[in-house]
């Protein structure tokens, strides 16, 4: 087990190198010129050259990349072009807020998704099952930005129940609307996967055995089906969290939630390339860590996985 975990953690190193490499490749090898993006449309060639020199972008690409990597290792992601402050310091402020929001959303989503999925599975082919399955398909089909606007319209403008946007410290009424917006598609995915996972376990031999020996249906479900269905469900919650974080930026922007996503978006709007680059890398690291955690957790729950690896 320990060697399994250690191996997974060591695998992070090439992945981190890969993440930074791909970002570098995208930003600096694409035919567009990032410096032109920073300088804005009306910049003179002299301005462009001076920015290029100031940012060290006139050096050979591999020097820039190695330089960036070696600084990143000691926690130096450069300075924001807009605020001139250390990006690492700014990230320390925004990242916890994204963690708050994603956790709140994932809690709502897991609760809703798993309970709906279980109801659907236990009552397979009944009208609640059909309703839940249809609802899940709809939940997946909302464009997130539009759903955010409509929820603002409903809960803030019409019903005056919740504030439409803003941030006042974390787990309060301000987190509800963005968290619900994020949880709506997520819980749809979770409901579907939970349904299939429970249905799969209900088909196993040991379920038939426990039914055959006269165990009550409730006990069959709670003692035998549920614990085994939880293995794929746990993994799914982790993967769902990773997916949710991938789409959190636009929700943060619409609800003025001052997290990493909004930071990244503002960096894009203000053409602050170093900050944008750093936040995309941090997003990717985030998701990588979640995947790692899910892997390890999976190994812990299901010993077959860690032994096989």
């Amino acid at each position, binding site marked *: 087990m320990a060697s399994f975990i250690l191996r997974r953690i060591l695998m992070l190193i090439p992945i981190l190198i890969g993440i930074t490499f791909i970002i570098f490749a*995208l930003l600096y090898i694409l035919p567009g010129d990032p410096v032109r993006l920073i300088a804005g449309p009306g910049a003179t060639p002299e301005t462009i050259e001076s920015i290029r020199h100031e940012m060290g972008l006139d050096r050979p690409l591999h020097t820039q990349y190695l330089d960036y990597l070696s600084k990143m290792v000691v926690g130096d992601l450069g300075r924001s072009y807009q605020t001139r402050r250390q990006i690492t310091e700014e990230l320390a402020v925004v990242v916890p807020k994204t963690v708050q929001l994603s956790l709140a959303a994932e809690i709502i989503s897991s609760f809703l998704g798993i309970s709906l999925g279980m109801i659907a599975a236990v009552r397979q082919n009944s009208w609640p099952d059909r309703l839940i399955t249809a609802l899940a398909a*709809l939940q997946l089909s909302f464009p997130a*930005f*539009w759903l955010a606007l409509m929820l603002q319209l409903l809960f803030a403008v019409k019903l005056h129940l919740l504030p439409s946007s803003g941030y006042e410290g974390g787990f309060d009424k301000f987190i509800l609307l963005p968290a619900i917006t994020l949880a709506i598609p997520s819980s749809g995915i979770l409901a579907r996967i939970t349904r299939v996972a429970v249905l799969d376990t209900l088909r196993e031999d040991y379920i038939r055995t426990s039914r055959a020996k006269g165990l009550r249906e409730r006990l069959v479900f709670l003692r035998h089906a549920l614990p085994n269905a939880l293995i794929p469900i746990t993994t799914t919650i982790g993967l769902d969290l990773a997916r949710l974080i991938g*789409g959190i930026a636009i929700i943060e922007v619409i609800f003025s939630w001052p997290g990493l996503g909004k930071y990244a*978006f503002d960096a894009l709007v203000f053409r602050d390339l170093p900050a944008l680059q750093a936040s995309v890398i941090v997003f990717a690291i985030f998701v990588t860590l979640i995947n790692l955690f899910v892997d390890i957790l999976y190994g812990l729950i299901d010993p077959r996985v860690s032994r096989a690896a």
Partner: protein
Amino acid sequence: MTDPNATQHFVPQKAVGWQALIRNIPAMLSLGFIVVLVLVAIFAPLIARDPKAIEMRRTVGNEVLNPPFSPSMQNLFGSDQLGRDIFSRVIFGLRTSLIVGIIVRGLTMVVGALIGLISGYFGGFVDIIIMRITDIMLVFPVLLLAMTITAILGPGLSTVCFALVLVAWPDVARLIRGQVLFIKNQTYVKAAKSCGAKNSRILFRHILPNCLGVIIVAFSMGIPGAIMYEAGLSFFGYGIQPPMPSLGSLIADGRGYITTAPWYPGFPGIVLTLLVLSFNVLGDALVDSFDPRAR
């Protein structure tokens, strides 16, 4: 030889293939809806009014109205602040959505399938490198990455397509690679190899045709995602640029009128949701009917 289904004879066999698809009512409704929307998009100039026609004043009876007009027989989805018909703007936006969705997903399938074929067939070092790249591409925040790419290249139809293909190919490559790994150990591929067939012939005459089912399903499953991402990019101003219409930028235009004219951002979003929903339902039904591993 024993029938693997022998023990299940008393269970009514679930229909598979086309039969299952045709009997799937929600899927057929979705298909119908998609066909209607595609026809509407093709014949947009015949159905819609000029989406740019401005109407600053309207008299109903002896009342003088100013835009935005609320939904009526005259403006099915209401009008915007300049009196432009939102129904017509939606129809032209729908056109863009469908075009982008199909182009992006088509290109993604070509790129992803080629890379997946190479990765799965040749294996070894090439495979390891390609799979590591896809691993890493999958951890990036898709929309943010796509926005960054279009911002650098300058937003517009072609850069939106480029950015969306660039962020979406890894999924397809992995899917096709998995399929190739399975097919390349089949007897007919080994037979072709032993006859001295060239790699390119085996790849394109034997393996690719056998991936076609998976490719078609993945193509249709991926269209709603592409449509949604284009709308997201355009909503934030990093996608399709005016004067080219897009549902995303239409919703962005209407955002400021959400309290005074909720139909303005509302209807384009409803149409977008229904479009994505129909593709999702149809895609799920395709998987159910043609993928033996899924239920």
